């Protein structure tokens, strides 16, 4: 249980999600990293490069300062870590379960929030954009692969994301084992 909650701390070390764009003139792809508290990429220039691409179709620039979630979500995670450690010390099955359910709710809310932002970027296009493709959707995929005009966009969890899952799995395992030991 303790390990499970500490897994969440990796979010401050690794990005939790990545969106990759592939096209012939980008042989290595353009990889954007979404962290718990910032948006970056493989190089310091990645975000600028993505914004340059997006500006052709009038997508508003991704400005991490303008996304409040990046500011407060880290505190939710820290609180979750604290609660997880608390639950581990308390060492009760229902404490574990409560933590798991809370993590699931936060995860679901987080993914929904991610979807909303994607929808906003993909649909709120500047009517004065140099290039217009009325029938195309520019919303990146929530998870998986999608063709967006000349790009293939790929959206997948990154290391931090996998650690959340690992944390949840460890917590579930702790809850299950504890039940088994009791009986």
């Amino acid at each position, binding site marked *: 249980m303790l390990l499970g909650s500490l897994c969440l701390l990796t979010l401050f070390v690794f990005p939790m999600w990545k969106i990759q764009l592939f096209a012939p003139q980008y042989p290595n792809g353009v990889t954007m990293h979404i962290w718990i508290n910032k948006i970056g990429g493989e*190089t*310091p*220039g990645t975000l*600028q*490069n993505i914004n*340059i691409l997006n*500006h*052709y179709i009038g997508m508003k620039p991704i400005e991490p300062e303008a996304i409040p979630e990046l500011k407060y979500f880290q505190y939710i995670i820290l609180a979750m870590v604290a609660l997880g450690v608390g639950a581990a010390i308390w060492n009760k099955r229902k404490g574990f379960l409560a933590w798991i359910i809370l993590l699931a709710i936060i995860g679901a809310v987080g993914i929904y929030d991610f979807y909303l932002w994607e929808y906003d970027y993909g649909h709120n296009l500047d009517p004065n954009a*140099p*290039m217009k493709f009325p029938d195309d959707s520019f919303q990146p995929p929530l998870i998986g692969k999608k063709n967006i005009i000349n790009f293939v966009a790929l959206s997948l969890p990154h290391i931090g994301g996998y650690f959340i899952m690992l944390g949840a799995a460890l917590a579930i395992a702790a809850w299950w084992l504890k039940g088994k030991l009791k009986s």
Partner: protein
Amino acid sequence: MKKQPFLRTLGLLVMTCILVSLNYSCNTGGNTSSGVLGDDVASQVYVAPGEYDEFYGFMSGGFSGQISVYGIPSGRLLKVIPVFSQDAEKGYGYNEETKPMLNTSYGFIPWDDAHHPELSQTNGDTDGRWIFINGNNTPRVARIDLSTFETAEIIEIPNSGGNHSSPFTTENTEYVVAGTRFGVPYPQADVAINSYAENFKGMLSFISVDQTSGEMDVAFQVLLPAFDYDLAHSGKGKSHGWTFFTTYNTEEKSTLLEVNASQNDKDFIAAVNWKKAEEYLAAGNYKEVPANYAHNVYDEETHMATSTMKKTVKVLTPEDCPGLVYFLPTPKSPHGVDVDDTGEYIIGNGKLSADLSVHSFTKMQEAIANQSYETTIAGVPVLKFEDVLAGVVEKAGLGPLHTEFDGKGNAYTSFFITSEVVKWKVGTWEVLDRAPTYYSVGHIMIPGGDSKNPEGKYLVALNKITKDRYLPTGPEMNHSAQLYDISGDKMKLLLDFPTVGEPHYAQGISADRVVPNVKKFYPIEENKHPYRAMGEKDTRVERDGNTVHIYMTTIRSHFAPDNIEGIKVGDKVYLHVTNLEQDWDVPHGVAIQGAENAELLIMPGQTETMLWEPKSVGVYPFYCTDFCSALHQEMQGYIRVSPANSNLPLTWGLNDEQNQS
């Protein structure tokens, strides 16, 4: 009887056909080598689309003043690096940042004759840090940084005329050298030309190289008689610590040299013990003499070059420094001097002879220890030819010029007059193979061929005469290079490819020693240019009397600002353009109608400056010259030029944002 003439005719026809076909097949065989009929030559030079070449080849540009970079074995041109000549394509020598690179004691010299590229070495191996090249006409040495493939530094050589025997590095790039090809009065003076032998001198310069920054400094010069110091190579391994220079015109003549400098049966190889020189320097055994020479350094963070004039140089004189220099008699006006990969053999390519004379470093050391001298010239002991000679490669061809090594005990020598490359065995001096060149080969290059560990897979012949090798392009055509496979016993011609300017020497290096260090763009946060604009918010226009500074940025696909008013006729307008891009291969260019200049071509993260002095009233467009994006054609703007006495305020803007000073 009546049928006989017909039969005769038939017989003649058959004969003719046989002769014609024989002749035809002879021609084919002679012109394109047996490779065409044998194995598949094309696949050996075929580098599939998207694949990389195994080696970089750096060819000097000769009278183009530049270096061109080729992929080997494909022969594909990868880049032309501007070094000693202005390059309108890249704005080099035209923009304000790089103008100081071409500053000399004679002022701004926009051209030179670039001869011998030389890669930096560590422990005698090419290391991919830098490549050096000499400017022959206005004596200079340049250093090119191989992380950016840009010229990083140029230093002028004082007391020299025709910097030909240069740069030829030492084993750890302690020094690159510069020997004067033309004797000149020392110090320069208004003297009679026919007082040559009396008033003229020949100077050999050793330029130290800082191992971290690469920065060059003329550490010392060695004052010698006014012979023509033609070429050089530094020792390696056991001969590390020595540098060898060939000489001609030991007759010390100043007129009709083709005859008068070809009289002596033997000229010299000057062997300079630079470690000894360091001892004499430390002991203070030198004269610090007044001089005036430019030292130009490009700073990668400010993206600007600065030029400073140096005022003194240290000179060592053999009379005061015993053991510093020895002369090795060598037939006959030797051109190249090449030290084999073991460091033992010093090859004198006797240009006007049919033989190659090979000296032994060990025998040279013995002769020095025994003080077995033929005579002494200006304090320099002349060793005996027989004492130092290791062997002679006899009658291998006519006009031997240069020798490279394959690391397998073989040497390859170019023969200009007989147009061929001859392979011979080091130690036994026997000729193993010969291959024709098309035509009149000068230098040859094997990757690492003058280092301790040659990569003896390919040989490139750099030919002086092209004639019919390619589709004709009028009286002037590119020079021609030829690639040979030297991995087997016999040399095999693989490829012809045209080269830029006149490549003299060339260097080759495994791509994997260079590629990991190559930069893709300049990080914008490291930009320290005094006139940078770190973002569009930073852009502005400032007037200081008649001088106007425009702080402009580029990003796909607009300039900021792109409308500027309030410029006046007679202004000196400095357009400082920062490319805000941070992606590989997204340069932007800038050109203004009527600017007496070249374009700017600005790499991502870089700032470059164009000086524009508008001459007449009007509104002038400027635009991006490098196709940057789908909206490249839209990347344009206007500058309004008003009369000199106009009161129009300076205004600038982009779209809705308008600013006024």
